[in-house]
């Protein structure tokens, strides 16, 4: 990573430098079997969640009056069985996956935007502004955020938009710290000096020069944030505070399954397995990316 940034590069040469870094990372990532397998499995799950419901004979809310709480039954094409209201569990699991994955991605993006902007600004401006902004982060760190998220969900309705905001608002702190640290080291580089000399505004430098160069660690952290966010949503849904009917998510399905597991094990096991595999894959990919992008850390 360091030799890629040696020498102050004119803006025109930047794409070449960027690509070589990413090619390098990709080469290292490809040798990591766990990460590659995870990537493939995750892609498979994502495709299944998006395409699968169209290929199955049942819709999200279709009730099969011949089958309430039935075990997996291939003849009736209820491959995962049905739940208490006669709705097909496979379809619901796949739909739930759509929601869970979407929450994971959007929640991460929200925290990414807040965290990167905050961290880059703080690190770049430095001095008193920096120490004040980081002081605020320290204070926020010690707040038990989970409780506030729960309160938010309870008191301000349980719509999905709020889930994104709440989750994003909880998760940006680490991102801000990481980006700030990166920014502090980047801002002493010659190309920043050159940009200053050319009269680029501070915000322009942050946007065009600082943020793109912090991407490596940010991407790694992002991959590791997605499973956290999915977990958080499942946690809320499990308490009955997350996604609401008629929508569903893995957390909701697991919660329903946990309540009726004594009579219908499949209602708990299938969504739980999907959630677990997804979380596994994301964690392995994150670890793999970290090794690939930051060779010192191995």
């Amino acid at each position, binding site marked *: 990573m360091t030799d890629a940034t040696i020498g102050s590069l004119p803006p025109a040469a930047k794409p070449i430098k960027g690509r070589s870094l990413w090619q390098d990372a990709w080469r290292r990532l490809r040798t990591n079997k766990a990460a590659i397998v995870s990537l493939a499995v995750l892609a498979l799950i994502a495709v299944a969640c998006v395409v699968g419901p169209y290929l199955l004979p049942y819709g999200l809310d279709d009730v099969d009056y011949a089958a309430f709480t039935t075990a997996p039954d291939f003849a009736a094409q209820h491959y995962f069985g049905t739940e208490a209201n006669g709705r097909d569990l496979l379809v619901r699991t796949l739909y739930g996956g759509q929601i869970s994955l979407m929450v994971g991605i959007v929640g991460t993006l929200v925290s990414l935007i807040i965290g990167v902007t905050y961290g880059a600004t703080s690190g770049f401006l430095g001095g008193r502004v920096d120490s004040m902004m980081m002081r605020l982060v320290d*204070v926020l760190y*010690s707040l038990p955020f*989970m409780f506030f998220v729960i309160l938010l969900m309870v*008191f301000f309705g349980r719509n999905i938009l709020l889930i994104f905001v709440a989750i994003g608002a909880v998760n940006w702190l680490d991102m801000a710290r990481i980006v700030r640290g990166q920014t502090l080291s980047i801002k002493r580089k010659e190309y920043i000096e050159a940009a200053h000399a050319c009269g680029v505004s501070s915000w322009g430098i942050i946007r065009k020069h600082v943020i793109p160069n912090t991407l490596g660690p940010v991407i790694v952290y992002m991959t590791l944030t997605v499973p956290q966010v999915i977990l958080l949503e*499942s*946690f809320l849904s499990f308490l009955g505070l997350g996604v609401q009917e008629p929508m569903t998510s893995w957390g909701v399905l697991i919660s329903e*399954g946990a309540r009726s*597991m004594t009579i219908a094990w499949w209602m708990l096991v299938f969504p739980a397995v999907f959630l*677990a595999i997804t979380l596994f894959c994301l964690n392995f990919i994150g670890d793999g990316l970290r090794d690939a992008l930051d060779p010192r850390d191995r």
Partner: protein
Amino acid sequence: MLSYAVRRILGAIPTILAIIALAFFMIRLAPGGPFATDKPLPVEIKRNLEKAYHLDEPLYMQFGRYMGNVLQGDFGPSFRMRDYSVNELLRQGFPYSLQIGLIAVAVASFFGILFGTIAALKQNTPGDYGTMAIAMIGITIPNFVVAPLLVLLLAVTWRILPAGGITAGWTSFILPIVALSLPPTAYIARLTRASMIEVLRSNFVRTARAKGLPERITIMRHTLKAGLLPVVSYLGPATAGIITGSIVIEQIFGIPGIGRYFIQGALNRDYTLVMGTVIFFAVLIILFNLLVDLLYGALDPRVRYD
């Protein structure tokens, strides 16, 4: 060290005040209220109720009154569970939550360190990979999935342990504690392994081995002490995680701890109960973090307080 502790405690005061204020105004800004019912109450009754709980005063006065009471350790009466004060409810629930939480922390530390050390000593053997694979499972699978699965297997299918409640004596606490301590155990095992591997390669361990110390003493006396520092600093976040986790676990296993009161209070808009539990948990987390920082300093002579 003493002045550091005092400074940290003083530094925590604004945080706690901020928590109280945030929780207070967030709850009051929300639509609905503790006396909102399907059938509207007669106006006089509602007015009398609001008067009795000082809900008719302007918000800043209510806040001042509440703050004053909290500073004297009085969380007020519960709005929904009449005849109970929040203090009483906290006092009732706390022993359960504390027991489960403390034992979970202890279990997680013990087994996490044990497995992590073994894995580090047998680095790159099947034992190491096996332990780390299990740890990965413990980290990725959330405890609200593990807990029902454990119940399904041990309580429903095999009928070894009770599925919930607290009526069966100490055996009813086994599953909650296991479920609660699983994620931190896994995390601590990974942390321990990583730092032990690093310490095992350091010069002072080589010296200890070179002068002929038995391997057991080298590890117990020299390696572990240095290798456990990251674990100690993780105990702060771990406690916060266990406290949050206990909300779900208490819900699943039907344990009458504080976590359940929090959820109940939030769903019933029991203002004072929610505030009480949030403040209680927040203070607990802050205190524990402080404790961990002090412990860290006691273990690591390189840390200076200034």
